[in-house]
């Protein structure tokens, strides 16, 4: 059967649907449609909170690093922690920017799907960085946070510090790798593949 013939079969089907389909108006009225508007903004809200929280924490770390900059054993962890937190904040700002640029209701299918999947890609790659940097963050942040918040010098308790480092490395990294592999890697692959499919579809054949 040719596609044109199927078009007329489809038109008849459409006519039959018109006669037989029923809209459950009562159910549609009952649906809490207003609630969904708020839920749609949840990812953006999360990123805004992350940027604000991250920026406050970054300011604290930077000021603590400056305060103890005369001692290399605090300066170095302070710089490393600041770099890691700066990247986290930068990633959240990029995600926020991507989210606010998504034009849900006036874009073509290609445009919207591309922006959604570009956001997903960014989300998954920054998640990878976040997870993999957590153990390094814990090791670096401990000396500077300890001294700045509680006047506790971890270097005076080398055994505790070594145990902390070993635990972060032994438990932290395999744990983060496991979480990433099981929760995020497949999603990253899906987003990448779909972006490729979209570019392929967009290309003139």
């Amino acid at each position, binding site marked *: 059967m040719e*596609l044109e013939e199927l078009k007329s079969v489809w038109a008849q089907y459409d006519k*039959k*649907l018109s006669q037989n389909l029923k809209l459950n108006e009562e159910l549609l009225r009952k649906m809490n449609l207003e609630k969904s508007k708020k839920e749609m903004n949840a990812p953006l809200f999360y990123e805004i909170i992350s940027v604000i929280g991250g920026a406050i924490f970054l300011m604290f770390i930077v000021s603590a690093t400056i305060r103890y900059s005369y001692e290399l054993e605090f300066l170095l962890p302070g710089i490393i922690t600041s770099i890691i937190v700066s990247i986290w904040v930068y990633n959240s700002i990029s995600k926020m920017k991507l989210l606010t640029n998504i034009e849900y209701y006036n*874009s*073509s*299918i290609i445009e919207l799907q591309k922006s959604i999947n570009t956001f997903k890609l960014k989300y998954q790659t920054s998640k990878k960085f976040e997870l993999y940097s957590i153990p390094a963050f814990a090791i670096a942040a401990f000396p500077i946070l300890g001294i700045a918040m509680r006047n506790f010098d971890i270097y005076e308790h080398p055994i505790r510090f070594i145990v902390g480092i070993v635990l972060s490395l032994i438990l932290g990294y395999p744990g983060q790798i496991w979480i990433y592999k099981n929760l995020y890697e497949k999603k990253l692959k899906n987003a990448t593949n779909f972006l490729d499919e979209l570019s392929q*579809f967009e290309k003139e054949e």
Partner: protein
Amino acid sequence: MEKEKFISVIKDNQNLIYKICYSYCSNAENRKDLQQEILIQLWNSFSKFDGRVKLSTWIYRIALNTAISFYRNDSKHSDKKVSIDASIISLSNFEYVPEQDENITMLYQFIEKLNEMDKALILLYLDDNKQKDIAEVLGISETNVATKISRIKKILKEQFRNN
């Protein structure tokens, strides 16, 4: 008042929503969720419709985008907005059962095999949309639409010959 206007728009376009849900979800339970998701998205954008495009073009765009995102979603069943038991758009009685229509069943089987973007293209084509409108909804050139339709035609011919 706005809700009543919305319900009337949905009533006029329920065929379109039903066909999109049927094409993107073979599972009846998922179809119910997709239907709900499409209605939520249409409602959220209802106040933003400014008439610059045809109402049907606007509905196609939102419904197809929602269906594609739903299909590609990695956790599609965990974030149901509202829990409902029944379908909002359904066949009123069993006088007409699309599954008993051989050509329609075959056509849906064919559509099911296509990727998400080709599904959107063929649905727009079967619903007798002009190439210009299809290009606008999808975001590709008219020439590209024509080329893709002729490619799908070839595949379809093969499929029906084999059956």
